[in-house]
Structures are given as structure tokens and as C-alpha cells.
């Protein structure tokens, strides 16, 4: 794609936004009916596509700069090349973000004109001034960053890195600014408890800051920032996989094998924090209005969370499988051993932590103190007890724990779409019995509660950390052959990227649906016939369609930028060689 084409897409996006803001000022704008998919479906698809592109262009620059710094500090050209190639894809996807963003606000205005006008008027400074300005600044800095890459080398490298840092600051500011209205729709700011009612407060005295600084604003900022890094990491893994599949020589295969490994490392590294960032967001939503909690976990959205459990389990299984495949090609792996206490600790976490958190629910202080003591106990014991297990045994137990952790995560009170419909005979519900382990008793019902889910999430995270520690130890003691990874690893990277995107669309829908039959929760009713909760089956078609559309665009962007660029370079090199040879 040429520069003028990219610029045209960005200008088109900005024009869409400008037109939308102007249209919002018209009195009594009329709604249009979107054919086939309905108004909600149209907004859903365009918004989700925009968020996916935006997530990548905001997440990728974070580790692009880190990679550039690593390359500069360690004089490792691989990091520099990784940063440059991911930036190249980011530049292409940036124009798609602008275009889908403009399209999103345009479709929103055409289908829900009164709500959009209401929102634009309440957040006028955000939509008409801050967001477009930040977007223009970001465009300028991104293009500066890209086009000065070769010019700012050597002693000027620090200036280029500074540009990258500035790009990230602007990107983060854009995210934080636009999250304000988004979070407001979920948790509109209330006046002090027992004071003015919500509607009067928002319509009369609330300032822009009051509206921005709502309950879920910062949790959403944190969750999206972490999520964007996960997403960027897995898409980098995808780029690595594509380029590995297309590589024609060992040098490229070695580089793209390493490239995919780094992408996965970033994705998994950030993924470890994601369940807790998600938990914080859910906690704040429930704290704002406790009725949101049962709606998510026990009522209409309960099976969406069941699906989320399945997806998270699959992502953790796949990322650990990738580590396993990576480890398998390290020479001397069989000599790597770890303390048996690590294995026992890993196996104990689901049950022990579940019991602790059932007895002392978070945020009780003992919910932190006792688990810390438990882990410390094993770390100290490991100093004295010298029994060890082989790396392969440890990894296999780790996989077993991922499956057990995921089984706990996915255990519901009942296999029903809503608890209100659970049959009285208990034919679909957890039994009332319990399991006595002698010194302690586990009630089956506890398996479906939050302490058990938290213990399961912690198990998945802990197992992955142990696997990476093991992997690092293997790297230090053995010898890795880059480019020689099992071919199936490339499909694991593709799977991880696809599943991460699918899960993002699933959880994005969940956050939006928690507003129930409101456009703005408890404030603006959704009077359209589409204000009901869609079925998970129907939603899964939308998730898959959006994911595939995004995948097709990203795949083309990768092929266009990296493959074509490489072929061009090869063609130029082959043209140049005979000329030089002839001259000689």
C-alpha cells in the first residue's frame, strides 16, 4: 500500500468522525434500519473490528520500543529487525484503525442517532477536540518514527527511541481518553450516596471530569492496556509463523523461529496478568451495582463465562505446549532437573488456595498472608530437601495441573442458561455432598464459587511461570537450535492468535451486554427491539466472523508488507550483483 493510499484512509476516517459530530448537532436525527444483520449487529461488528485493529496498534508499539532498546543495548540485530518488521505491519494496520473507527461512529450515528448525539454532547470535548487531536498527533509521530528509522541510527538512536516512547505515551493517552465514555456507558458516575439521583446529576451538575472518572474507567484502562500487549504479542507470533512458513533459507527460518518465540513470550507474559486485570474490572462493575454480578455469572451471561473458561484453558494449554515444543529442541534437556518441592507446591495450589480463599475471601488480609506463607514454606523446604525431578516429568505434571485448573474454572453451579431455570430435582446442578480429606472437607458447591475460580486462575499462571523458569534453565545449560523447532509449533502460534482474538471478541461482548436493556446503564433505556441478550450460539457466529475478517486483513497486511518487501529486496540485490560483477 502506498503512502498516499494510507493517508487517504486516515483522512477518510477523520472525515467520518467530523461528519458524525456535525450530524449529532441536528435536531431530532432519525434512525436508519440496517438490512440483514440489524442495527445492533452492524454496530457490534464494526465496533469490534475497530477495537481489534486499535488493540494491535496500541499494544504493538509498547514492545516494539522495548525490542528496539534491547537490540540497541545488547547490539543484537534480531531485536532491531523484529521491531522494524512489526512496525511495518503496524503502519498498515493504523490506517485500517482510522477507517474502521470513522465507520464505527458513522454507523452508530445512523442506527442510534439519539443516543450518539446524547453521548457526543455529553463528551463534546472528548469527541470533537481531544480524540481527533490525539489521533492526528499519533499519526504524525508514528510516521515520523517509521520514516526516520534508518536515518536515526548510531549515535542518533536514542532520539529514535525517544520518538517511540512518545508514540506510546500518545497511544496510551488516546486509549485513556476514549475509555472514559466507554466506561461511562457501563458505570455512569453517581452523585454521593443518598444524594441527587443519577439522571439529575448527569444532566445538570456533573462535569466532564465527573463523567470520565467513573467506577470502571481505570480498571478498563488497565485491562485494555494489558490485553493490548497480549494481543500484540500473539499477533507478532502470528507474523513469525507466517514468515517461517514462507521462509526459503535456514537463516530466515532461524530468525522467524526466534521471532515467533519472542511474540509468544510477550503474549504469555502479559497474559499472566490478564485474569487479575479482568477480575479487577469485574469487581468494580459488581461494586458499582451488585445486580451486574449475578447477570454475568449466574444469569443470562453465565454460559458466556463458561465459554471464556474453555478459551482461557485452551490458550494456556497451547502456550505451554509451545514452550514444550521449544524446549524439546534444546540439546541436553534430559539433564535439567528441578526440586520435587516445586512439583508438590504446583499440585497443591488448586485445593489449598481454594480452601484458604473460601475461608478468607479476598480482600481479607489473610487471603494474601496465608498463600504467601504456603509458597514461602515450599521455597524454604526446597533449600533443604534435595530430591529432584526431571524436566519432562515436571512439564507433564504441569499439563495435568492446567487441565485440573481449567476443570475447576469451568465447573458451574448448574448446566443451565440461568440459575433461575435450574430444575428443582438437581438433575443439572452440582450435588450437595462433600469430599472429606480427613483433615479438611471440600463441599462440591464451593467448586462453582469465586474462591475456586481464583485458585484455578492462579494455578494456570503458576504452572506457566514454572515452565518458563524451567525453559530458561534449559537455555542456560543446554544449546538451542533456532529454526529447528517442530513444524507444528507454527500452527500453535496461529492457534494462539486466533483464540486470543476470539476471546477478546467474546469478553468485549460480555462487557457491552452487562448494560442489559440500557444504552447507558440505569440511565438511558434501549427502546429498540434488539435490547435483549443474544444467545451464545448466535454470538459465536459473530465472534468467528469478526475474527476471520480481522485475520484476513492482517494476513494480507503481513504478506503485502513483509513478503513483498523481502521479494523486492531480493530482486534489487540480484539485479545489483551481476552489474558489480560485470564491472569487475
Amino acid at each position, binding site marked *: 500500500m502506498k503512502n498516499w493510499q494510507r493517508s487517504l484512509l486516515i483522512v477518510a476516517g477523520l472525515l467520518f468522525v467530523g461528519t458524525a459530530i456535525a450530524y449529532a448537532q441536528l435536531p431530532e436525527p432519525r434512525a436508519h434500519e440496517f438490512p440483514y444483520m440489524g442495527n445492533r449487529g452492524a454496530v457490534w461488528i464494526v465496533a469490534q473490528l475497530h477495537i481489534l485493529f486499535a488493540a494491535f496498534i496500541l499494544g504493538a508499539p509498547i514492545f516494539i520500543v522495548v525490542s528496539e532498546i534491547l537490540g540497541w543495548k545488547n547490539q543484537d540485530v534480531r531485536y532491531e529487525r523484529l521491531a522494524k518488521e512489526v512496525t511495518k505491519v503496524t503502519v498498515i494496520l493504523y490506517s485500517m484503525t482510522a477507517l474502521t473507527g470513522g465507520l464505527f461512529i458513522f454507523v452508530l450515528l445512523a442506527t442510534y442517532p439519539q443516543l450518539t448525539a446524547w453521548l457526543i454532547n455529553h463528551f463534546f470535548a472528548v469527541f470533537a477536540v481531544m480524540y481527533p487531536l490525539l489521533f492526528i498527533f499519533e499519526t504524525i509521530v508514528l510516521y515520523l518514527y517509521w520514516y526516520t528509522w534508518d536515518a536515526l541510527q548510531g549515535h542518533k538512536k536514542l532520539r529514535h527511541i525517544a520518538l517511540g516512547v512518545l508514540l506510546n505515551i500518545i497511544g496510551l493517552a488516546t486509549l485513556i481518553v476514549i475509555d472514559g465514555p466507554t466506561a461511562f456507558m457501563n458505570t455512569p458516575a453517581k452523585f454521593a450516596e*443518598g444524594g441527587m439521583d443519577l439522571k439529575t446529576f448527569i444532566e445538570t451538575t456533573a462535569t466532564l471530569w465527573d463523567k470520565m472518572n467513573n467506577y470502571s474507567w481505570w480498571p478498563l484502562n488497565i485491562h485494555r492496556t494489558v490485553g493490548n500487549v497480549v494481543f500484540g504479542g500473539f499477533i507478532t507470533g502470528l507474523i513469525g509463523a507466517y514468515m517461517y512458513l514462507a521462509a526459503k533459507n535456514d537463516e530466515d527460518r532461524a530468525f522467524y523461529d526466534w521471532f515467533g518465540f519472542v511474540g509468544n513470550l510477550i503474549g504469555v507474559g502479559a497474559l499472566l496478568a490478564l485474569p487479575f486485570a479482568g477480575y479487577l474490572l469485574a469487581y468494580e462493575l459488581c461494586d458499582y451495582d451488585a445486580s451486574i454480578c449475578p447477570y454475568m455469572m449466574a444469569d443470562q451471561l453465565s454460559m458466556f463465562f463458561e465459554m471464556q473458561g474453555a478459551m482461557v484453558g485452551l490458550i494456556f494449554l497451547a502456550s505451554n*505446549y509451545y514452550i514444550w515444543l521449544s524446549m524439546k529442541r534444546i540439546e541436553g534437556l534430559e539433564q535439567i532437573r528441578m526440586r520435587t518441592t516445586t512439583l508438590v507446591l504446583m499440585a497443591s495450589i488448586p485445593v489449598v488456595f481454594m480452601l484458604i480463599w473460601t475461608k478468607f475471601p479476598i480482600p481479607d488480609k489473610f487471603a494474601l498472608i496465608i498463600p504467601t506463607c504456603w509458597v514461602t514454606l515450599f521455597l524454604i523446604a526446597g533449600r533443604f530437601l534435595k530430591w529432584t525431578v526431571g524436566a519432562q516429568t515436571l512439564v507433564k505434571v504441569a499439563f*495435568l495441573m492446567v*487441565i485440573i485448573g481449567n476443570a475447576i474454572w469451568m465447573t458451574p453451579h448448574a448446566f443451565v442458561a440461568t*440459575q433461575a431455570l435450574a430444575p428443582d430435582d438437581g*438433575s443439572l446442578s452440582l450435588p450437595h455432598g462433600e469430599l472429606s480429606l480427613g483433615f479438611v472437607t471440600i463441599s462440591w458447591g464451593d467448586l462453582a464459587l469465586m474462591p475456586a475460580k481464583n485458585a484455578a486462575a492462579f494455578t494456570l499462571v503458576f504452572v506457566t511461570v514454572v515452565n518458563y523458569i524451567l525453559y530458561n534453565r534449559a537455555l542456560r545449560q543446554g544449546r538451542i537450535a533456532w529454526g529447528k523447532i517442530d513444524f507444528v509449533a507454527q500452527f500453535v502460534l496461529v492457534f494462539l492468535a486466533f483464540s486470543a482474538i476470539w476471546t477478546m471478541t467474546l469478553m468485549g461482548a460480555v462487557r457491552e451486554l452487562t448494560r442489559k436493556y440500557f444504552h447507558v446503564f440505569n440511565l438511558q*433505556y434501549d427502546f429498540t427491539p434488539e435490547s435483549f441478550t443474544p*444467545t451464545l450460539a448466535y454470538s459465536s457466529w459473530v465472534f468467528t466472523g469478526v475474527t476471520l475478517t480481522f485475520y484476513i486483513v492482517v494476513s494480507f497486511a503481513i504478506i503485502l508488507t513483509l513478503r513483498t518487501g523481502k521479494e523486492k529486496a531480493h530482486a534489487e540485490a540480484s539485479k545489483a550483483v551481476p552489474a558489480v560483477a560485470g564491472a569487475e
Partner: protein
Amino acid sequence: MAAQTTFFGVIVKRGFQGIVAAVVLWLAARFLFHFPPVFQIMFVLYAFLGTSVFILLDAPSLSPVSGFKAVVLLIGFYVVISLVYIAGASALPQYDPMVEKGKIEKIVKPKLAATEKGKIDELLKRTEELNTQSQAILKRLETLGGEEAKKIEASVGGGPAAGAAPTAAGGNLVALGKEQYDLQECYNCHKIGGKGSVKKRGPMLDNIGTLMKPEEIKEKLLHPRAWMAEGFEKEYNKKLMPDKYKELMSDQEIDELVAYLSTLKDTSVPTPKPVKKQ
């Protein structure tokens, strides 16, 4: 070929172990712990998932593929994942949107009617209904009295002027209150007659009519922090009951709900005692 044989060996070995694990889990779930069939199936599926994972762990390396074959493999892979995810999501229990649509209509309709647009829509709808009715009456009059009917029509200026009186709310207050209890989804936190929240977020309400006077129940609904049930006084629990019903429900709806809750006087159920806080 040797690699294929080895992989076959892995499948047989791990497959056998997986079947044994599945049978053991199923027996334990069914006869020892008495889990319902749906959970027994879940345990068996986990055993198979574990088996697949362990087969993959021991599988020999896959030979590299490139070019057109790689593209076909990739596309096939995407199709398979997409279908598996859609099938997985569709296999889980689905909430029937029709149930919710009915509930939402009951909640949202009065709110829409209260808006300017709602009022205009309602007036237009009533005008249309009256017009249809008047047309039908005139038709009947024409058949009965012929020209005389036309004279009547002319004298009254084209049709009936007064609208039909609004129908009185059907059903009694208690039944309407029970409907409000369902519409506001109070059952997500409270239990009545053993039905409702499994997490004990809020107290059982079976005997609330004995423990609280109607005006006290109303005060609790409008100002949740004014009364707290014994055993639900922790700082976290205090915020559990949303402080929004005075804004989202009309006075009429609140009165209906209070009327229903006041009838709950089952002394055999240990409903926690409410204590006045503010």
C-alpha cells in the same frame, strides 16, 4: 514410516490410559460422589482432553510443509478452529431471548410511554385504533340505516371524538408485585420457597412479611442501607443491595412489590431479622 509407527504406538498407549482414567472418573462421579449425568459427561470429556494433550506431548515432530500445501493447511486449520468454537458455544445451554424480550417489554414499555416520543407514539396508536373502530361502526350503521347513518356521521364531524377509557390494571396488587419481583430479578440474590440465589448474596425472604411492616419494606427498597438483615452486616454486604430502585421503579411498581413481600409470612423458614440502621 518409523515415526508413524511410533506415533501410532503413542496413540494406543495414551488412548488406553485415557480410557482407564475416563472410566475411573465416571465411576467415582456416578457411584461415589453422586454427580448428575451432565457432570459425569464433563469428567469423561476432561479425561479425553487430557489424553489428547498427552498424545500431543509425545507425538513425533511434524515434517515441514511449504508453498501451496502450507496455505491449504492453514485455511483448513482456520475452518476447523472456527467450526469447533461455534459448535462448542452452541453445545452449551442457551438462554431463550423470548423469555427476556417479554420481561424487557414489560419494564421498558412504561418508560417509553413516559417520554415525549412515547406519548406521541401512543396517541398516534390510539387515534389509529379509534379510527378503525369508527369505520367499523359506520359500516354497520350503513347496513342498518343507510342514508341516515351518513347524516349522523356528518352531524358529529366524521367519527367518535372521545377515546375509550383506559382499562383498569388487571389482576390484584400482590400478583403484580410478584411479577415485579421477577422483572427486577430479585431472585438472583434472594430465595423464596427454596427458589432463587444459590450464593446467599441476600437473605431468604419467606417470612419477611412477619418481620417487617409494609412501610419498613418500602423504606428498605428505597434506601437499602436503612435496614440490614442479621448476618449481612459486613461492610461488603452493605453495598450488595443496589441503591437504584427509587429511580428505576415507579411508585406504583414499588407499592406492588411491597404488597407482595408483605404477604410472605412463612414462619418455618429462618428469615434473618432486619435491623434498623439509619
